[in-house]
């Protein structure tokens, strides 16, 4: 079993300045990717608020347009779309509910037996879906352009305790880890003859033997993970050493203040009725 290629061994040589290797000091490249994680979170928050608070189509459409540009520039468009597809069932349910059941809508598109979809319902469903997509895309782009450890290091630098930092980190990593584990369990159950293909009721029936081991496995893992963390001095008092800290600047602080001011302004205008 090999533990590294010559290229890896060469790149493992310590950095001459502090002994920290380059791959630990890594700096994200590109205008957007190199922003401080807090700045990207502030921008994402502004986008989410704008999508929901600005009346009509302007808010969500403008936010989605900006996000598409950012996703193309940061080469995350494909992953953004892939993750965005997870919202399809929610979008479909929003459309169905609003199309047929929006209270007060009285402009039917047509009549299909007892069902009468309305133009108002269609418009409201599309608008709500656009806002939802703007929300999920803003979070997705921020996630895809921010290395998790950069976010954690920045949170730690800003004074969030190590438990809080760990909870955020574990939470962010939970989805891919759970999916990976679910895949392993599903493979194991298939190997023992569980039928997971074909009609929807068969797939639904397969959820039970998947969910049991998934939940129980996660619970038993917690105790071992707790011990493993304690064995690495997780509960030691005092502040953690930070090997590197994501770059920040006055310009970025200004961007964050502007984002915060814009969020507050939009909220105030909306609450006072001056924004639709």
């Amino acid at each position, binding site marked *: *079993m090999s*533990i*590294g*290629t010559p290229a*890896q*061994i060469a*790149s*493992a040589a*310590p950095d001459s300045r*502090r*002994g*920290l*290797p380059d*791959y*630990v000091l*890594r700096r994200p490249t590109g205008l957007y990717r190199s922003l401080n994680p807090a700045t990207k979170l502030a921008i994402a928050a502004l986008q989410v608020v704008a999508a929901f608070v600005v009346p009509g189509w302007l808010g969500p459409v403008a936010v989605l347009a900006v996000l598409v540009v950012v996703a193309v520039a940061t080469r995350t468009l494909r992953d953004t779309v892939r993750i965005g597809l997870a919202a399809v069932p929610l979008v479909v349910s929003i459309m169905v509910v609003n199309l047929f059941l929006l209270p007060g809508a009285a402009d039917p598109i047509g009549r299909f037996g007892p069902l009468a979809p309305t133009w108002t319902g269609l418009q409201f469903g599309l608008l709500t879906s656009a806002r939802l997509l703007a929300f999920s895309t803003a979070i997705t782009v921020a996630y895809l352009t921010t*290395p*998790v*450890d950069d976010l*954690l290091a920045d949170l730690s630098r800003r004074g969030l305790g*190590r438990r809080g930092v*760990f909870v955020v*980190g*574990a939470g962010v*990593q939970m989805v891919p*880890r759970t999916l990976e584990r679910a895949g392993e369990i599903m493979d194991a159950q298939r190997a023992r003859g569980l039928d997971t293909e074909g009609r929807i009721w068969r797939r639904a029936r397969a959820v039970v033997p998947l969910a049991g081991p998934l939940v129980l496995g996660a619970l038993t*893992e917690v*105790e*071992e*993970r*707790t*011990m*493993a*963390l*304690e*064995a*690495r*001095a*997780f*509960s*030691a*008092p*005092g*502040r*953690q*050493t*930070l*090997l590197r800290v994501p770059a920040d600047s006055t310009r970025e602080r200004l961007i964050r203040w502007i984002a915060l001011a814009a969020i507050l302004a939009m909220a105030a205008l909306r609450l006072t009725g001056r924004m639709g």
Partner: protein
Amino acid sequence: MAIELVGATYRYAGTAVPALGPLDLRVEPGAVTGVVGANDSGKTTLCLVAAGMAPAVVGGKLAGSVIIDGVDAAGLRPHELAQLCGLLLQHAATQLTHTTATVFEEVAFGPCNLGLPANDVIERVWGALGAVGIDALAPRDPARLSGGQAQLVALAAVLALRPRYLVLDEPTSELDPAGTAMVADALVRAARETGAGILLAEHKTDVLARIADRMVVLDAGTAAISGGAPEVLADPRLAGLGVDPPVRVRLERAILSAGIELSTSAREVLA
């Protein structure tokens, strides 16, 4: 200077029957003490008790005492214990934090928790990676390692705290023969380079035959056999206690039972 269990008896919370003990055991610095036993014989419990995690983290009740280098483990907090006695559990996946981007940072997690100056952290990380022989893994993503590599990283992560003792609970249980050999080699190397005393619970007696100096065979939480590793591993009572003797011992017995005389040189080859 040693880990000393004196009349140690441990019960998990909510149970009436002790999972371990009474047990007396001594883990010497610079030596490897192997622990074997059938399933449910108390190996994992012994590891948790010897490392001070039970009852400090796990809960339950401990009677008797666990003394680490003259200090009663009951009076130590988990982060203090971690610097005296490193603990490595059997599942590689749960040993890693899953919050770091490189093996270097994964190994640095413990020293960083201690708030050590960055230069000290860096020195410890390179030292631990070197002791286990995985310097080349430093830039790799911990989530993309094989089981054997992940277990080695977990071992290096524990070593980075520079404990005087290491307690390892079946660290090769999930590994194939190549991964097992990697971990066994790393343990030999770590014991030699750090001088740490090692308590190793392990099903694979061939691994213990290779690296253990002393052995304890557990049965229902108590020591059924103990002594020097070669003697214990050749003890005829081993199979009755649910433990497979090493291949060498079984081969030697098979040859002798076939009525074939073993010359001294043949015995040396087998050994």
